[in-house]
């Protein structure tokens, strides 16, 4: 279980997150949603230690900050929103970097095969020899995902679940690859791992998330299942626009259609 307790982040004078609490369970995909500037990415970065925060981030009851960097890298992998690569790595060379992170689980030959498996999984088979800087934004994001997957390939290691922390994993992707990536995340969770994803797309969230944390102005607005959280009232209030939600039969979760930007008081002024 990954817990955040009383997380507060302050940039200068501004409190970006105010006493945020949440729990994410292994076996589930937990989505963090909210409007721009609500603190989604900051919350993820507070958990990974990338931004300084007060409060505690605990993994199975242990403070993440108390673990060694190698142990952390063995227990969780982080996909950043975007990133530049300083030197001309090939796709295979970059994905292989995931192998040397944290503690390996398999024999050498099995490890050597992982980058190829991961590339096939993200739909980039045959891209091994391409240079990372020549790829499109969406391809690059999937290369990074393959690297992250290689880092914690087995969702459960020695009886403890491992965690995928994804910051807007589908923001640069076309609809086909959005589904590919979300299915990878869901499969990882179903195999016993834990997934926390910062999401922009509410409909993908509704389709794939087991649990949703809705942030608004640095605070948790609502937590629970997509049906419980992604309601007209919650979304109109947080996003400041009129939405209509309904539930088409095959999806099971609410389906959100933005209607007009003028609904919320204080948003149009």
């Amino acid at each position, binding site marked *: 279980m990954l817990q955040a307790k009383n997380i507060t982040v302050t940039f200068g004078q501004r409190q970006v997150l105010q006493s945020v609490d949440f729990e994410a369970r292994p076996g589930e995909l937990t989505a963090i949603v909210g409007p721009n500037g609500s603190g989604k990415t900051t919350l993820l970065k507070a958990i*990974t*230690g*990338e931004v300084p925060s007060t409060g505690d981030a605990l993994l199975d009851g242990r403070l993440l900050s108390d673990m060694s*960097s*190698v142990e*952390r*890298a*063995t227990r969780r*992998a*982080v996909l*950043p929103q975007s*990133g*530049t*690569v*300083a*030197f*001309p*790595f*090939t*796709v*295979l*060379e*970059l994905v292989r*970097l*995931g192998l*040397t*992170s*944290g503690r390996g689980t398999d024999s050498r030959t099995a490890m050597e095969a992982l980058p190829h498996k991961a590339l096939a999984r993200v739909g980039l088979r045959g*891209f*091994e*020899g*391409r240079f990372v800087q020549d790829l499109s934004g969406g391809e690059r994001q999937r290369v990074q995902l393959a690297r992250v997957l290689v*880092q914690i390939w087995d969702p459960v290691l020695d009886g403890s679940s491992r965690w995928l922390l994804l910051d807007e994993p589908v923001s640069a992707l076309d609809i086909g690859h959005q589904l590919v990536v979300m299915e990878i995340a869901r499969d990882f969770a179903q195999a016993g791992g834990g997934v926390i994803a910062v999401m922009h797309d509410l409909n993908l969230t509704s389709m794939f998330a087991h649990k949703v944390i809705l942030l608004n102005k640095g605070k948790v607005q609502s937590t629970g299942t997509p049906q419980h959280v992604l309601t007209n009232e919650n979304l109109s209030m947080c996003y400041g626009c009129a939405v209509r939600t309904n539930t088409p039969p095959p999806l099971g979760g609410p389906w959100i259609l933005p209607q007009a930007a003028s609904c919320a008081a204080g948003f149009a002024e």
Partner: protein
Amino acid sequence: MAFVSFPAVKRTLITLRTPAQQGDRTAKSFALQAGLLVLLLLMMLLSLGWGAASDTDVLGAIGAKFGVGSASARDMSIVWDIRMPRMLTATVVGAALAVSGAVMQGLFRNPLADPGLVGISAGAGFGAVVAIVLGGFLPVALLGLVGPYLIPLAAFFGGWASTLILYRIATRGGRTSVITMLLAGIALGALTGAATGFLVYRADDDQLRDLTFWGMGSVAGASWFKLMTAGPIIILALVATPFLARALDALALGEPVAEHMGIDVQRMKRISILSVAASVGASVAITGGIGFVGIVVPHLLRLFQGPVHRMLLPNAALLGAVFLLIADMLSRVVVAPAELPVGIVTATVGGPFFLWILLKNRAMLDV
């Protein structure tokens, strides 16, 4: 051509021909490493036989040292007292400068970082000049303690301080700015240059002779004594660098990502800066500032074998040594019978090369 059918060689040749499709340049890098090793040994030997006294029996002198055959006293002296320390100095310093360049570039995440360009060599030179001019004022007890290591140590601390200052200035919020780094390097270089100039102005004639040599960058003044004082420091620093390879690779993805990948970034930065300062400092102490080796060598290698540091660092050591050995041999013949300081040769090759990289990477500088 019977040897080509030898399975290992054949496999290497096949891998060499079709590596880009696989995206795996490891085999290519190993093949290059083997080639460079052979080339290095050849160049080391050639360097021993290269010079005005062309009739010297090099192999005889080497054999005689180990009790095989005999050689004249003159040949023994030329090979063992003059050329051998010079050759070894060029080898060690070339390796040190190239590896330091590769480490600096990895640390700053930029192919333009070079100890000479950003003022680290100037800082080390300043340290050495301070030791030469002001060393006499040290308490005798302390002088006895550090003795011959005073100049290399001072150069090391000069290089270390400049690297640290540079990194602190250029890095904000985990991001190292290229422009800040280059500009701060220029400022730092000018400052240490001025301080060095002041000390030169104050120096006496004996010290001046020692000092002139720093501006040049030359392996001509090599001796066993200098090699023995600086060599161990350089080798110690070089031995530390392979442990940095994984961290430097991860750092190419940015500091936060490297942290996520289990790298103790602060620790690896400290080790990198220490090893660069040690090897550049010690190199400057015995040869003065030789520029551009650190930028030309790693860049050429990255073009051919890619940026993976596990292969880049050892190959940079080999190619750096080869590069400086060749430059030194050129410096002995260009204006024969006189000798050019080797720094002039490396700058002649390196200057245009640097400009070329700069123009190719212009987009990166406009960030």
